[in-house]
């Protein structure tokens, strides 16, 4: 494990011959093995968390790769700026966000974060290079969403967006079926910048896909208050693995759904409440116990997506496996420069499953078949198990990334999906 404190230490860290390969890691929020490098070494980037430049009039921000989105927001929000897009946790590093080309609830407007990256510092083959859409474009495209394989992202030059407030005007709309979801979603992507739906995937039949749709636009009150990381809510110990089972999740979903169904609501929410609800509870993952959980996030291309999402949800409801948090969102048309980018036009469904071992993996293989048949893809940042052929089929430009890979860099994910059996 290398822990560089200054950027000038990176070339030597990548070239160290004490390890067979290296991989840059940030805050380790990837669910699978894309942030692991079993036989090699890791370069912990969190010590490189400095701000390099911030232009308060243009919103251009240059930062070292190890800084967290949380720390960025604390600096820029008071000046009326925000990240162009954000995932559901602010505890990720900006380098990791770029390496996974993360997306958020505003994908239909902003695209993924790679769409707003102006330039990157990349340490590759022992050299410090500056790359961007117009500078070594092929290497840049391989690096956006490139899972850290093309070298070590040293710094990121990002275009922020101006916001009229630090709060959002949020509308929560309970709905009773998938058909209602599609109707609300297609109306909302026009009227709202942020859209997402929580779905109760324990209910089948006519109720399949019922849930609560939330949509939001920035408020216009001109009040700018950054968040605080102080959290009084925490899960102090690991729950027994049995705690989240079909009965408790069904009961939770039922209560949650009823609570939302009582009324369609509109409220002002701080960005931390709206974008990062789980960040308020530290170590929430302990709810899943020692065996942990598995994420399954897929995207289904447009056209067949309505039928395919229904098949996936039916399959899950029938399996008897509980998914506590299920999220459905439609992606927009904006394409990222990234060759390995996950977001693409269509609909994305994200599911959390408590790890029940063989039966959970079997369910996922069943879901794989439906996703592959529909020409969809799985999100590498959340994957620890997809078969290599599925990866290669759904990320057809992977060989171009392989060609740009730094020979000193490797990851467990990459060995799993790129090596021929």
């Amino acid at each position, binding site marked *: 494990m290398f*822990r560089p*404190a*200054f*950027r*000038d230490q990176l070339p030597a860290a990548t070239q160290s011959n004490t390890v067979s390969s290296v991989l840059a890691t940030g805050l380790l929020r990837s669910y699978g093995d894309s942030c692991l490098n079993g036989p090699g070494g890791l370069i912990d980037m969190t*010590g490189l968390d*400095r*701000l*390099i*430049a*911030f232009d308060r009039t243009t919103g251009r921000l240059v930062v*070292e790769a190890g800084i967290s989105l949380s720390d960025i927001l604390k*600096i820029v929000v008071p000046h009326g700026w925000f990240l162009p897009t954000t995932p559901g946790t602010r505890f990720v590093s900006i380098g990791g966000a770029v390496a996974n080309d993360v997306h958020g609830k505003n994908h239909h407007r902003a695209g993924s974060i790679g769409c707003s990256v102006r330039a990157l510092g990349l340490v590759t083959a022992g050299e410090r290079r500056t790359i961007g859409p117009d500078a070594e474009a092929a290497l840049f495209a391989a690096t956006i969403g490139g899972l850290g394989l093309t070298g070590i992202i040293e710094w990121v030059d990002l275009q922020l967006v101006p916001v009229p407030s630090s709060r959002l005007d949020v509308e929560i709309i309970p709905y009773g079926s998938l058909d209602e979801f599609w109707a609300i979603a297609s109306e909302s992507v026009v009227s709202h910048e942020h859209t997402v739906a929580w779905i109760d995937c324990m209910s089948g039949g006519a109720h399949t896909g019922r849930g609560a749709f939330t949509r939001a636009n920035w408020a216009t009150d001109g009040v700018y208050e950054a968040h605080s990381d102080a959290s009084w809510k925490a899960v102090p110990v690991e729950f027994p693995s049995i705690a989240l089972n079909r009965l408790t999740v069904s009961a939770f979903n039922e209560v949650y759904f009823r609570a939302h169904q009582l009324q369609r609501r509109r409220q002002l929410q701080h960005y931390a409440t709206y974008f990062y609800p789980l960040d308020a509870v530290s170590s929430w993952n302990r709810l899943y116990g020692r065996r942990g959980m598995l994420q399954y996030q897929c995207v289904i291309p447009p056209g067949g997506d309505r039928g395919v999402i229904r098949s996936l949800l039916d399959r899950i409801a029938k399996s008897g496996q509980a998914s506590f948090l299920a999220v459905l969102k439609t992606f927009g048309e904006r394409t990222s420069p990234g060759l390995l980018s996950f977001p693409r036009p269509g609909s994305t469904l994200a599911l959390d499953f408590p790890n029940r071992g063989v039966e959970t993996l079997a369910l996922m293989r069943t879901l794989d078949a439906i996703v592959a048949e529909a020409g969809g893809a799985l999100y590498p940042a959340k994957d620890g198990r997809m078969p290599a052929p599925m990866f290669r089929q759904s990320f057809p430009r992977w060989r171009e990334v392989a060609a740009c890979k730094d020979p000193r860099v490797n990851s467990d994910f990459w060995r799993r999906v790129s090596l021929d059996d």
Partner: protein
Amino acid sequence: MTDAAKRIVILGATSAIAEAAARRWAKAGGRLVLVGRNTERLEAIAADLAVRGAAAATFVALDCASADAEAELATIVADLGGVDVVLVAYGVLGDQRTAETTPQAAAEVFRTNFTSAAAWCLAAANVLERQRSGTLVVIGSVAGDRGRLSNYVYGASKAGLGVLVQGIAHRLAQQGARAVLIKPGFVDTPMTAAVARKGLLWAKPARIGAIIVKAADKGGPVVYAPGIWRWIMLVIRLVPASLFHRTKL
């Protein structure tokens, strides 16, 4: 000096603990001068502090261990128009075994951690005494509280510095200025990277930085960081030699 930006000079500004303290002073709108050896690193830190809110963040690249402390500090303080805090944060851990077998290695630890740091402390004391205001903050170590076989060369250098700062605190107390010795316990920094870091007693640099910034404003002349170390070191000092000498501490 309540409304004006605080003027801060940091010696050894590229140390993790110093940078953590600097970020707090920057957020409060301070004017900082960073002193250290590596220009590229000082530049990176100065740029970061400027974005975080520092009214000014400049640097002077020199080797604190061999510089003419009196002259260099005079120039820096003249440019700042006075000084509110001088933080002496540089130091080397050295290797105990090497120091025992190689006299130059031990001398190097003493020269860096004690002889040169003492020169800066005395220079700063003269400035603060003339101003009749301001605080000298010096990073010592709990290792200076009792000589132990595992690190007594480093410990001796920090113990000597501690007595010097104690004396300066006594002297300045009668002149309206202050001196504070910070004694960190285990801190997770590049300096201690080679030590196995496990357990509840290891603190992050950010925590020590917060304690330093607070100590620069008020508090006693000796501050353990975090405070639990005051009690841990009290116990360690009280253990009779007959027992202590059977340990490998």
